[in-house]
Structure formats: C-alpha cells, structure tokens
C-alpha cells in the first residue's frame, strides 16, 4: 500500500497510508531503524454502542495543507454519523508526531463519542523484547526497548487526558492484539506488557447535536524516559494547536524561497513542485543522507526496503535541490558523500543513513569465479557531476575546498584507474537498474561528464596537469562511446556491451543519459535518433500513457500486453528532452504537457511513486520515490529556464 503522506524533520520520519494510519516511523535516523515497519496504528470510533475502525466503511481523503508539511485528512462515516478532520505533522525541531482530530457529530442528537488510538510498535523493526506500560506521571503510555522510547499521550480540547488505556500481547496464538479490546468501546486498563506487545488508548468527548470538538494526540520520541518525558511536557504545556502553527509556518517559509518564479506554470504543476521539495526534504536525514523511499511495504516483495542512500538517487536529489535554490540541503548530501567514499574512490552500492554500508546483491565474483567490482559506477560519477553543477550555480569555493581532495580527486582518480585501455571506456560495473554487469551507455555517459567536472575543478584549483589529463580523458571517452556504444546501422545508442563481448540492443529509456547526464546535446543526431527509438518502443500507448523503463521489463509488470509499466523518471526524461530541444514557446508545450501529466497522476497528496499501473494509474512499487520527485523538480526548472529565454526572444 502506497504511503499517502510523509512527514519528518530529518531525525523522525513518519509515513501514513491511505487510511491515515501510521505505517512507518523511523527514528533517530531516517532509514532502517523503522519502529513500525509497515504495521498499522489503527484508529477507531465508538458511539451509540457501535464501534467502527476507520477503514473500509469510511470515505477518506488525504492531502497536505498547501506549501507545508501538515496534512488535512477527512474521514466520514455516514452510518455512524461521524466526521473526522485531522491534521498530522512532525514538529520541525522537536521529535514529536502531532495529531489533531476534529470530531464532528453529524447526528441530530447529543452523543458521547470515544476515539481510540492503537499503537503497534516493533521497536528496532522487530517484534520481540518490547515493553508497553502505563506511565502515571504523564498519564500516557510508554513503549520502549533499549535506547528507544516512545511516549504516547493526548488531551481533549477541554484538557482531559486519556480516558482509558490497555497494554497487551499480539501476533501470538490466541492473541490478536490489544486493539481488539477496543471494539466494545472500553479498554481493560492492563498497565504493562512485555514481549510482543501493543497498546490502545481512548479519549471521551460529549458532543451536542451537529457540533464538533477536538482531540489531540502525540508521540514523543527519545532515547530514554527523561527525553520523552520532557517532550511530552512541551506538548502538554505548549499545546498541539500552537505546535501545528509553528510547523505550518516553518515549512511554508522553507519552501517559499522564491528563487524560482513559478508563475508561468499551471497551478497543479506549481503546487507539485513545492510538494516535491517538501517530500524530498522529509527523506533527507540531518546528517545528509538522502533516503530513496521511506515506504517499507516493498519488504513484502524481497525482504528489504528502499530505505537506503543510493548515491545516484542522492546526487539527482542534490541536483534538484540546487535547481530550486536549496543549496544548504545539497551541501549536506555532498558532505555525507565526502565521509562515506571508499579509500579507493568509489561509492558502494548503497548506504545506511549513518554512513555504514547497506545491503547488496552485487557479488565480488562472476558466475565463473572471476573478480568483479560490485559497484554501479554511475553512482560515483553522478556525485561528481552534481557537485560541479552545484558549484557552477553557487560559486561556494570555500565549501568545495572542504571536499575537493577527499571527494573530487579521489573519485576522479578511481574513474581514471577504472578504464579499459583497449576501448577507452570504463571497465564493467552494474547498471543503474541494478540488474546486469557490463559497460552501459548510461554509465559511460555519466563518467564522461564526471571527468569533465573533475577537470573543471582541477582548473579551479590551478592544477593544470590534472586539468589536462582529465579533459583529455573526457574527450577520449566521448569518442569511445561513439565508437563502441553507438550503432550506426541501428542509428542509435545500444544499451551495453557485456564482459563476454556480446552487445545488448534492448531499447532502454536510460539511453537518454548521453544527453541528460552526458556529453551530448539534445539535438545531436545520435541523440535524436535514439530518442525516436525510445518513443517508438517504450511510450505506453494504451491506458494511462507514460514511458516504460525498457523493452519487456518484468519488474512488477502488470501485463504482457504492455512492454513495461510507465515510470515517472523515464517519462520525465523524455519531457526534459522535449524541453531542451525546443526553439519556441510553442515547442515547449510537449514538455509542459508531460509535467501536467505527472501532476495528474500523482496521488491526491502529491506523492509520486516509482511506477504506475498502466491501466488504472495506481501507484506501483515504492511510493513516494525521491528520484521521481527529483526528476520532476529538474524538469520543471529546465522548463522555466527555457520558457524565460524563449519568451524574452519571442
């Protein structure tokens, strides 16, 4: 199930599904330490001796308040005569998840209404060794294990605390969970449970006919009882209303830097531009790690998640943040890269937010036992390229000076070393889709621009010999790409050459990399011919449209009738090509239409998934995916830049 909204502050990240249930809560780093791990924090209502969980019988709508990281969600149950309006957020400085629920009694008679919140923590991502207990000093429930504490508490608008509570056992024979205890409208009051446990709390309000009252709920996150106690006291003293205003104002100020003039855009595109920046920011750990996605549901697919830092995804996010004027965020990422780059000068497949090496499926030997370097070299290359683009825009040489020796020199030395003298191309590495090892056009293109970027940096730091070597290497590699990876008979780039010498002729959307992140221009024949093949083979003609990843893509494939599900990033690459080649405002329209298509196919909240169901347009695979949002930001920024130039000369 896709995550409908994501909230965060760089330490605490919380994701909700389409029924307003917390499904992921990572703390204190935005990655694998997910203390909910896809389980559900249910919410239920009891009134007139009837109980209902907020699920299928409710009409739910979820979105963000515009330009900030506070939600507005509504849920209505006509048969129960209850409407809920909720605002959820994570405080920008305090590790507090905050929820306001406005309960409306739609009936024509006064009623007592009880609202139930259930907590299904799996602290450190596992279900054993947890404790859930009533804590009388705060009047809340504490879940803890080791150095992770979560204090759950709340108030009604008239200042009453938790009405009833229960802690108990779950996920074992005969024990469905404490949430079941709520269905009679009352909670048993068990004060402590140890092991595989959960908890439930309730609040009680008296509502006159067709009137409303607010209930406030929060989760304080900390490393010990004192920390969560202090946060709980802040929530009680300051009040959720005030804290919500603080968050609304903070993120609104953050996103409205006004370095990009969005006025030429339709409102839905401009709105998604800002939402994308906010969603991306929730995935940036305050230590600079950019998590690909906080959505843990992909666990069900391969027992691992997207909650890692792929240097590629991070570099593309950095390019997007820079394009939109958020250089302070991209700098954090470059410093992260400076810390985690290997001694030899490449990046590993992926990382955890603390900089340690992430899980991988890339082996150090091939099927015959021969050594192979288990990296995706474009990940190293794109970081260098993004850093150069960052410098071109912000000219912050003092910052670059901090990372030049360790990051730029080391990475470019590796790239030089990792070349095949015979071809002038790089030696094999895994492709950006993480499937095959070989020499890929997409990878080679990024390496070429990385060499150019490193050459420019060398010139900046007055290292003439290095500048010369890197410039010459970049030129040679560009020529080598044309010699070996461009097929004159086919009139387009090929996907790859494998270690056994075989050539992969599959039409792949990443063949746009020579233009997008490589040394070739949008209107060069080698590019335009390649794009024609992509349009011909990969543009999804049926259903919702968009562009597939490559021919016969099996990953999450919905139908054999369609060559592959449409991906947002692939669709946006084509838009970026249309924008780049446009010579008039009219010619920009094709790119603009794709930007509007993306806005139309985002979730109502503005979240972009990795892929779409080609028939229904529903999200597939990780959702949100930072890469999708980053490509959207870049495409919009490029559109606006081009629009300004073309409209001025029109």
């Amino acid at each position, binding site marked *: 199930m896709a995550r409908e909204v994501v909230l965060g502050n760089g330490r605490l990240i919380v994701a909700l599904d389409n029924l307003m249930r917390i499904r992921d809560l990572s703390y204190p780093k935005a990655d694998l330490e997910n203390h909910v791990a896809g389980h559900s924090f249910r919410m239920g209502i009891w009134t007139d001796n009837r109980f209902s969980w907020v699920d299928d019988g409710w009409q739910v709508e979820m979105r963000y308040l515009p*330009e900030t990281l506070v939600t507005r969600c509504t849920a209505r149950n006509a048969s129960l005569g209850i409407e809920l309006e909720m605002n959820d957020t994570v405080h920008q400085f305090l590790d507090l998840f905050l929820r306001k629920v406005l309960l409306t009694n739609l009936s024509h008679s006064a009623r007592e209404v009880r609202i139930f919140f259930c907590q299904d923590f799996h602290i450190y991502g596992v279900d054993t060794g947890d404790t859930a207990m009533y804590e009388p000093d705060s009047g809340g429930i504490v879940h803890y294990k080791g150095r992770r504490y979560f204090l759950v508490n709340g108030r009604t608008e008239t200042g009453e605390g938790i009405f009833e509570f229960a802690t108990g056992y779950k996920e074992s024979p005969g024990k469905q969970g404490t949430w079941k205890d709520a269905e009679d409208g009352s909670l048993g009051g068990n004060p402590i449970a140890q092991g595989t446990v959960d908890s439930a709390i309730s609040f009680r309000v008296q509502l006159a006919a067709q009137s409303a009252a607010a209930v406030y709920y929060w989760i304080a996150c900390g490393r010990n009882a004192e920390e969560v106690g202090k946060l709980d006291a802040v929530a009680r003293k300051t009040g959720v209303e005030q804290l919500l205003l603080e968050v*609304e104002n903070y993120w609104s100020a953050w996103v409205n830097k006004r370095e990009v003039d969005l006025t030429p855009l339709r409102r839905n595109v401009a709105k998604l531009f800002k939402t994308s920046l906010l969603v991306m920011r929730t995935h940036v750990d305050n230590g600079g790690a950019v998590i690909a996605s906080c959505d843990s549901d992909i666990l069900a697919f391969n027992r691992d998640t997207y909650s890692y830092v792929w240097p590629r995804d991070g570099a593309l996010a950095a390019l997007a943040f820079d394009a939109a004027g958020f250089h302070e965020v991209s700098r954090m990422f470059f410093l992260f890269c400076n810390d985690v780059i290997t001694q030899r000068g490449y990046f590993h497949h992926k990382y955890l937010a603390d900089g340690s090496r992430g899980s991988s499926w890339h082996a150090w030997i091939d099927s015959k036992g021969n050594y192979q370097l288990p990296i995706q070299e474009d990940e190293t290359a794109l970081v260098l390229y993004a850093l150069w683009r960052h410098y071109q825009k912000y000219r912050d040489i003092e910052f670059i000076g901090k990372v030049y020796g360790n990051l730029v020199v080391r990475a470019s030395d590796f790239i030089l070393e990792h070349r095949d003298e015979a071809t002038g191309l790089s030696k094999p590495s895994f492709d950006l889709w993480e499937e095959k090892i070989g020499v890929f056009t997409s990878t080679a293109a990024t390496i070429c621009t990385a060499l150019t970027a490193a050459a420019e940096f060398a010139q900046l730091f007055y290292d003439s010999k290095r500048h010369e070597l890197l410039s010459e290497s970049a030129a040679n590699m560009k020529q080598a790409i044309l010699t070996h990876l461009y097929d004159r008979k086919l009139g387009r780039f090929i996907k790859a050459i494998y270690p056994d010498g075989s050539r992969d002729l599959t039409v792949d959307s990443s063949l746009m990399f020579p233009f997008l992140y490589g040394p070739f221009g949008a209107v060069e024949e080698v590019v335009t011919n390649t794009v024609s093949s992509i349009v011909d083979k990969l543009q999804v003609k049926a259903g919702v449209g968009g562009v597939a990843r490559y021919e016969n893509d099996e990953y999450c494939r919905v139908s054999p009738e369609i060559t592959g599900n449409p991906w947002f990033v692939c669709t946006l690459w084509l838009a970026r090509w249309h924008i780049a080649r446009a010579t008039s405002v009219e010619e920009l329209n094709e790119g603009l239409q794709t930007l509007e298509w993306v806005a139309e196919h985002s979730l109502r909240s503005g979240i972009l998934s990795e892929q779409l169901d080609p028939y229904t347009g529903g999200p597939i695979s990780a959702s949100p995916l930072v890469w999708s949002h980053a490509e959207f930001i870049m495409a919009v920024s490029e559109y606006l830049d081009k629009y300004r130039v073309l409209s001025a000369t029109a």
Partner: protein
Amino acid sequence: MALTKICSGDAVAAGELRQFNVGDVEILVVNFDGRLLCLAARCTHAGAPLVEGELSGDILTCPWHGSRFRVTDGSVVRGPTEKALKMYDCQLQAGDLFVEVR
C-alpha cells in the same frame, strides 16, 4: 503613483485566482465577475497561500484554517484571522494589468 505591470488582462479567467510576484511582494489576482482585483497573497492569520484557497462568489476561504475574506475589499468575513487582507490599487492599461506596490 508608480505602477508595475503584473500580467496581461486575460491571464486570470473569471472566477479564478493566480499569484504573481512583484519583487518581493506576493500578489493575488482575483477575477471576480470580470473585475480584476489585487490582494495580498498570504492569509493574515498564519501566512497560508491564498491562491490555493477556494473562491465562492466574492468570498475567499483560506486553505489552512478556513478564514474567509471578501475579495472586493479584503475584509474579514470569518476568523480565525482578525486582520483584513491588504488590497493593492490596480488598473488595466492597453490590455495589461498594472498594480501599485507600496
């Protein structure tokens, strides 16, 4: 008075809202019944972007907390805000909308 061109006179359709920036000033242009009006683009309560609000007749509702303003004079119809929206003098000249930003 110093007037600045903000947009063409047909840039905002009837019943629609659009935001434009004049230097650092964010201006909301409202087409109410064929009449173009220029107001401050942020709610006076908590700074919400009013361009994302709902326009019904001459009443504009803030997208964050539901404050309501009358677009013809910026006055508050319903809280939580207590402060009226600033109105900017504007006029159409040769098909373009000009605004006076003070």
